[in-house]
């Protein structure tokens, strides 16, 4: 029923001479949560980072193939990677608010980096809206000018989500956003992801298969044939189907905990 937001064709990613992922083809549906699962080193994080052109920030890293967001190739020659990243936000594994900034300044940082005016009342509105969207407003509304690093780990991660959505991106990429958090904070982030999927396309990398089952509608399973070989997409499908009767035997053995 949903149109595809991201269309990935024949994607290969390299670190220098090492190929990290080979020939991935995938459609990521709009306004749904897509989870990437797979053993360590299978390239799922690398693949996630190619989706907003963060992969190329690593020295020697390069990408082949095409990724289209609403029909526009992200790797088109004339396109500035910064513009891509404005529209495809990212949340990292470890919560990392900017330590030199207050909670308010953290939320507005993306706008300021892009010279988008957010002074005075307009800024206040954006801060409140983003923090409310990240379910953090009630906890921090009295201390917006305190440093962001003074919050708990789970609150910091929600602040990072607020910071990402303040730019109103089309897509939100999350790289194991809960792996550094306790179960209660994880629960809060998962609830938040389910709310956010109404407005954003969400792609999440996770090591936790229960988490993938709880929050995602689509699941993609990545694997690698041997250490040193590039990772590849084994299969992708509706989460329910993937977890109850996967097509490929290696998906089945990974999901049932036989390796990984």
């Amino acid at each position, binding site marked *: 029923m949903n149109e595809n937001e991201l269309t990935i064709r024949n994607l290969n990613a390299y670190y220098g001479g090492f190929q990290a992922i080979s020939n991935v083809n995938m459609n990521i549906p709009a306004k749904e949560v897509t989870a990437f699962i797979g053993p360590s080193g299978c390239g799922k994080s690398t693949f996630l980072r190619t989706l907003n052109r963060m992969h190329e*920030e690593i020295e020697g890293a390069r990408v082949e193939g095409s990724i289209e967001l609403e029909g526009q190739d992200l790797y088109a020659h004339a396109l500035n990677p*910064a513009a891509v*990243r*404005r529209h495809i936000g990212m949340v990292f594994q470890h919560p990392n608010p900017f*330590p030199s900034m207050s909670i308010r300044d953290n939320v507005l940082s993306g706008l300021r980096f892009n010279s988008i005016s957010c002074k005075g009342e307009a800024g206040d509105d954006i801060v409140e809206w983003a923090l409310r969207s990240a379910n953090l407003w009630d906890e921090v509304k009295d201390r917006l*000018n305190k440093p962001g690093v003074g919050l708990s780990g789970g609150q910091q991660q929600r602040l990072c989500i607020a910071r*990402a959505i303040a*730019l109103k991106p089309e897509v939100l990429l999350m790289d194991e956003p809960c792996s550094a958090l306790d179960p209660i904070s994880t629960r809060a982030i998962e609830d938040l992801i389910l709310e956010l999927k109404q407005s954003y396309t969400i792609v999440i990398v996770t090591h936790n298969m229960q988490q993938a089952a709880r929050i995602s509608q689509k699941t993609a399973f990545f694997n690698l044939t041997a250490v040193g070989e590039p990772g590849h997409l084994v299969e992708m499908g509706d989460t329910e189907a993937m977890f109850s009767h996967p097509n490929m035997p290696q998906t089945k053995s990974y999901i049932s905990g036989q390796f990984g």
Partner: protein
Amino acid sequence: MSLLTLNSSATKAREGKHWFARTPHEMPETEETGKTVATIESLSRRRKLRSLLMNCVVVVSACVVVIPVISIFWTALTRGIAQLSPYFLTHNMRGIVGGTYPYGGIFHAISGTVEITGVTMLICAPLGIFAAIYINEYARRSRLSRLVVSAVNIMSGIPSILAGLFAYALFSLLSGVGTINGFVGVVALAVLALPTVIKTSLEAVSRVPDTLRESALALGASRSVMIRKVVLRTALPGLVSAVILAIARIIGETAPLMIAAGIVDNTNFNLFSGRMMTLPAYIYNEYSQGLATCPTAHVASLMPCDPQIRIERAWAAALVLILLVAVFNAVGHWVARRSMAGSRHS
């Protein structure tokens, strides 16, 4: 206690030594071969004694470190305070003869030190911080950045007298033999300050976690915006200490300034012409001349004369130098604290 002894005697019977007295790979001793059987009490007494001893060593070492600091400040304070007066701070040494009144002051040395140190830092702070940014942000493993780093390491080992001779020789070539002025001193001090600024700010910039750089880029920041708004802002306290450390490094330099900026009695604000006095050079100059000459007794009764005046002036100038460093330090830390969003309250 009785339970413990009961248990331990059972262990003793089995393996010769208590579990708490055995080291991991010790062979079990039998009752016959074991000479001394340690008890919990004796072991605990030994442990506490050793802890007390180590505590004493640590506290004494800490005190020994503090003694010279307090002693230096105390000596400068007690010996320098006598001559320290508004007159002393606002007058120079023009027309001061021997030990006779008026005793003169250090205004020319203060203005020279502030001007030369200030201009040196105006040159070195941006230069050093830009170099650190280039090395850390643009060319992490490039040949040029490795070259700069090793050049900095060699430069930081240059004896200060050589820096003075270098500046003197350079300006002798550029603008005539024997050119001595404030700016020659600035160049000499810049050679000394630059490695400190580069090394310390490189350390500050490289301590900024890469995850923050990634976050900024992922929010659509360009590289220059990321460096300006995230890297430099996060590293700011470290950059301020880089500048403070460099000031502390050069403000007490004596030998290069005596060669490059010279020694003079009158106040000179012009960096580019004429010799310029500085506090360390003043201190050395006063102290090295020893006792001042006073006229014969009957003239001295008409005009006050203090043969010790040179030494007193040297100490007073030393006290001013220490206070100047302390003020620079306080201002630097205040700036760093104020600019952090963390301490801002609304």
